[in-house]
């Protein structure tokens, strides 16, 4: 692409001005604030339109029309004009071809019309990063590296004008997100949702199958329950037959027993009639009558015994006289006095005995005393002799014999001493015993005197006589008292006899009033009647027992009803059992009751099961439909998974090929740059590497041989190299796309003259392949450029609004 003219009606400080550009290098020279940047911006805006936020920035200062017209030519020789009315934004752009025809349909893209995008094939951002270098922004912005590298790859690809790999990758990613979902997504995860749905369908199908199977099992259970019920029903029928047979036998036995009972009752009634005469006899009173009789008879015996006792106990005349005599002597002592007297006598006897003993002891002691003197004297003599011998031996200096004699002397001396002591003790003892004897004798004498004082007035010699007389007195007196008691008892007994007789007579009058005889006879009569009454009572008891027995047999039933039941059973053809076995009957009835209970439970259980079956069968799920839902969902999953695999495969290969393409263009960029770089750097930098993804530039520093990133070099060197890369980029765009014009807005403002001088060849070289418009304030640079054939465009102050 090559700009021909730009007419500016109004754009920033520029108004009503037309600029004409030549091929190759153009130099727009003007002082600062002359509008160089404005002109560059107007060129870019004419191609691409204004970016968001720039509309007010470039609004014409004059307030006039905000418009430009750019005439340019593409590489194929076609000429175009872009008319921009910036006030109307995207609606204010028209593109005409050389014939004046509206070219919107040819180069528009839907609703947008951007000659820069359509004809250069690169976005504004890529243009700005590659073809449009601003002051102090010669280096490529890393943030835009991706777009630039994509555009470069696109250019080198020579491919279609559609989006390149990045766009394709983005669409593939979008498709995956939309149709498959991502692993982390909680919402909008279609594949996961499908899998969950499939799982639900599967569970529902399994549950449905289980429900159907459960119904089948329930049917089997119902069948078994019915079989059990029928079996129990058959057993019940059989059991009932047995029960009825036994019941018939039981009824027969009862009826037979009832008949027996009935006969026996009649017999007893008949027998009882013979005792009607004693029907009202109070037999229970006969016992009292007997008691009264026995009491009367006992009383009589007692009275007789009392009389006999009286006769026995009564004192004779002689005994009475004796009693009087004894009362005068032995009777005068009361018991206490008599006991004292006897005690005194005993004491005297005791004293006597003690005195005798003491006298004997004293005699003995005196005897010992006399006898002990002689042995003591003898021992003393021996002791004296031993002593004398001892002295003799000592004088004779026979010490051994002296020692022996000493021993004997000491021994005999000691013995004599001991005997002397013993003799003294014996004397003392003898004297004590003599004193004791004397005391005992005194006691005896005192006691004897007391006794004598009592006996002598009575003319008794001994106490024993007194004792004998007292005993006799006591006995006679006891007899006298006994006789009195016997007499009293006799009287009492007589009274009792009379009372009992009266009692008996009263009872006998009540019971046997018609019997006039003695009591024994009357009693016997009463007893006879009582016995007959008992007989009658016995018959009554038999009757009661028979009645009870009948009641037991009937057990509350009516005998006619029993007979009727029995007849009914026979009429039904029931054969009574051979014998009545109530135990077996009860057992069978229990068993039947259990069977009945079981049958009821079975019916209840069966009803419940059948109800459950009906309910279950009313809600049978459609298993086939559920299985189909599972299969269909699974098929959808399979399709989505295949889609996912295919998209990921496509993505992987596109990505790999993209990387490969980027690596390729990076090499080309390096090749382009290396040649020019060496020239403009004075040979310093000849090797350059460009990262295809980030477009980061690395160069080898000749001094160190190290590879340094561009940012590590000086600003001037950095700009130099960046400029070279920009030109290389523009050349690469030329290969596959339209070559963009390169706009350099005073890139050398801060370079020294030497560097600028070295850069000029690069400029000219670069401008060989692309139209280059250099905006500069440097008249020297402008002059040098013009001298080399560049087109000069002056930005006079007169073109600038003050």
């Amino acid at each position, binding site marked *: 692409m090559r700009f021909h003219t730009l007419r500016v009606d109004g754009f920033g400080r520029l108004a009503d001005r037309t600029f004409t550009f030549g091929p190759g290098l153009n130099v727009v020279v003007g002082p600062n604030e002359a509008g160089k940047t404005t002109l560059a911006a107007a060129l870019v805006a004419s191609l691409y339109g204004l970016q968001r936020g720039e509309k007010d920035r470039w609004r014409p200062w004059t307030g006039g029309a905000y418009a430009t017209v750019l005439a340019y030519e593409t590489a194929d020789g076609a000429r175009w004009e872009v008319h921009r009315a910036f006030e109307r934004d995207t609606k204010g752009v028209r593109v005409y071809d050389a014939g004046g025809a509206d070219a919107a349909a040819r180069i528009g893209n839907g609703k947008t019309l951007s000659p820069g995008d359509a004809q250069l094939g690169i976005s504004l951002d890529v243009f700005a990063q590659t073809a449009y270098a601003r002051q102090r922004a010669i280096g490529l912005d890393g943030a835009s590296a991706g777009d630039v590298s994509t555009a470069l790859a696109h250019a080198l690809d020579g491919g279609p004008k559609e989006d390149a*790999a990045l766009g*394709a990758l983005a669409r593939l990613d979008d498709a995956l997100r939309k*149709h498959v979902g991502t692993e982390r997504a909680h919402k909008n995860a279609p594949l996961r949702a499908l899998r969950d749905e499939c799982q639900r369908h599967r569970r529902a199908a399994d549950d449905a199958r289980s429900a*159907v199977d459960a119904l*089948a099992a329930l049917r089997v259970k119902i069948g078994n329950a019915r079989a059990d019920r029928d079996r129990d029903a058959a057993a019940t029928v059989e059991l009932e037959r047995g029960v009825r047979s036994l019941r018939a036998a039981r009824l027969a036995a009862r009826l037979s027993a009832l008949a027996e009972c009935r006969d026996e009752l009649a017999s007893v009634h008949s027998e009882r009639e013979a005792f009607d005469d004693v029907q009202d006899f109070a037999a229970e009173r006969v016992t009292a009558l007997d008691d009264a009789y026995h009491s009367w008879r006992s009383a009589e015996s007692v009275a007789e015994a009392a009389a006999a006792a009286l006769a026995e106990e009564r004192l004779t005349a002689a005994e009475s006289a004796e009693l009087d005599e004894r009362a005068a002597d032995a009777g005068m002592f009361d018991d206490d006095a008599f006991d004292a007297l006897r005690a005194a006598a005993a004491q005297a006897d005791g004293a006597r005995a003690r005195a005798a003993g003491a006298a004997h002891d004293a005699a003995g002691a005196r005897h010992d005393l006399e006898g002990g003197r002689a042995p003591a004297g003898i021992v003393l003599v021996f002791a004296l002799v031993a002593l004398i011998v001892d002295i003799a031996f000592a004088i004779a200096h026979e010490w051994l014999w002296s020692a022996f004699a000493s021993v004997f002397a000491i021994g005999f001396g000691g013995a004599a001493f001991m005997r002397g002591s013993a003799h003294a003790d014996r004397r003392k003892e003898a004297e004590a015993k003599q004193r004791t004897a004397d005391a005992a004798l005194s006691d005896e004498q005192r006691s004897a005197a007391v006794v004598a004082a009592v006996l002598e007035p009575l003319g008794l010699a001994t106490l024993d006589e007194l004792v004998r007389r007292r005993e006799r007195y006591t006995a006679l007196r006891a007899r006298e008292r006994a006789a009195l008691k016997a007499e009293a008892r006799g009287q009492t007994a007589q009274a009792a006899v009379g009372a009992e007789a009266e009692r008996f007579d009263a009872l006998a009058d009540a019971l046997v009033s018609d019997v006039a005889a003695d009591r024994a006879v009357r009693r016997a009569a009463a007893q006879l009647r009582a016995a007959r009454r008992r007989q009658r009572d016995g018959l009554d008891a038999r009757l009661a027992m028979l009645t009870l027995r009948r009641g037991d047999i009937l057990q509350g039933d009516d005998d006619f009803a029993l007979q009727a039941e029995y007849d009914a059973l026979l009429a039904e053809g029931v054969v009574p059992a051979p014998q009545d076995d109530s135990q077996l009957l009860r057992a069978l009835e229990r068993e039947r009751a259990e069977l009945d209970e079981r049958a009821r439970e079975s019916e209840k259980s069966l009803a419940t099961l059948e109800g459950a079956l009906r309910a279950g069968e009313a809600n049978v799920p459609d298993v086939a439909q559920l299985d189909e839902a599972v299969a269909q969902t699974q098929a959808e999953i399979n399709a989505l998974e295949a889609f996912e695999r295919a998209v990921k495969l*496509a993505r992987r290969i*596109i990505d790999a*090929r993209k990387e490969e393409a980027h690596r390729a263009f990076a090499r080309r960029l390096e090749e382009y740059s290396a040649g020019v770089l060496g020239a403009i750097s004075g040979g310093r930098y000849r090797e350059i590497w460009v990262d295809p993804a980030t477009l980061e530039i690395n160069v080898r520093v000749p001094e160190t041989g190290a590879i340094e990133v561009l940012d590590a070099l000086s600003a001037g060197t950095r700009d130099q190299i960046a400029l070279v890369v920009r030109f290389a980029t523009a050349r690469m765009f030329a290969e596959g796309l339209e070559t963009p014009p390169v706009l350099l807005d005073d890139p050398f403002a801060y370079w020294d003259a030497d560097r600028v001088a070295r850069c000029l060849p690069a400029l000219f070289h670069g401008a060989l392949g692309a139209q280059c418009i250099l905006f500069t304030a440097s008249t020297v640079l402008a002059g040098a450029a013009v001298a080399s054939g560049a087109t000069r465009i002056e930005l006079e102050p007169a073109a600038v609004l003050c």
Partner: protein
Amino acid sequence: MGEATTIVHCADVHLETAFTELRGGARRRAALADAFVRVVDLALERRADALTVGGDLYEAQRAGPQTARFIFEQLARFGGPVLIAPGNHDPYSTHALYARDDRPANVRVFAEPAWSAHALAPDVTIYGFGHAPAEPGRPFAGARFDRPGTRLALVHGSDEDRCPPGKRATAPFTVAEIVASGADCALAGHYHGGATVRDEQGKARLAYPGSPEPVKFGERGAHGALVVTIDGDAVEIEHVELARTRLIDLDVSLDDAASEHAVLAVLERALQPYGRDDFLRVRLCGTIAPGTRVDRELIADRCVAGLGALELHDATVAADYAAIAREPNVRGRTVADLLELAANGDEDATGALRYTVAAFAGAELKP
């Protein structure tokens, strides 16, 4: 010589099958039930002396009470003796429909994996062999049928000589085994395509009626029932077609279709001969113009109304992959790589080609 004995024999009705290959399962299940009704109608029409069922009357995993009531109603409607040899899909067990106590009295089920004889007529005996849940082995191994008159074996199993390659044989047997057992002919079930196997003398030795309605795509052979006529020693087999539904696999070429409208038009023309009893799997093939939309949901919506069911598989090619593969750009190299993978059997590569071209073209990507 007594009167000839007529038997109507069917098998593989597969009531309550789940049709997973295609939608419209409910309609097809209804069609299976209708077919069984037609079998019973045939038996009544031909005044058959017996109705035999060679297994797989229903799907045990899915059949419930209403299936039982339907089957029993039909069998009771026939009224005559019904002999059933359960198959591997409806084996006899306490839970089987055959074990229900409301089974009609005229139905006899061969409940064991062993031969039992049923005297249908003084000179016609049917020996039946039933499947239980476990694999029954070779039914005719050691079998000896020796009752006088004509002996027919009723069994569900695989004729080994006709077993499709790769398919597992169930209760396998051979015609030689049938002959060795003493049976005059075996009335079988298991293969859904009906056929009769005859010996060198032309005598029918083995007959499959086929399923009354097709169950799976690709089934070849007759679909209906057999009318078996026994007259003396002769056993005649007549196949009676009963199927009304068709399962059809159809390839429709969309070559050069440049628009969705064209695609729809081609399909409507292709599907025009088919009707409500046809269940189709349509494979769209050919090369369509780039960007041409093939919306399966729209196609199904437009075309399914007159059909039993329609399943579409889009195998169209949206671009000249070979030409794209020659492009010296990322797209070209990618397509070349994928073509190579596809040629080596990578199934994902075929889909990846479509999506690659669509992604570069900015078209919407859909599964």
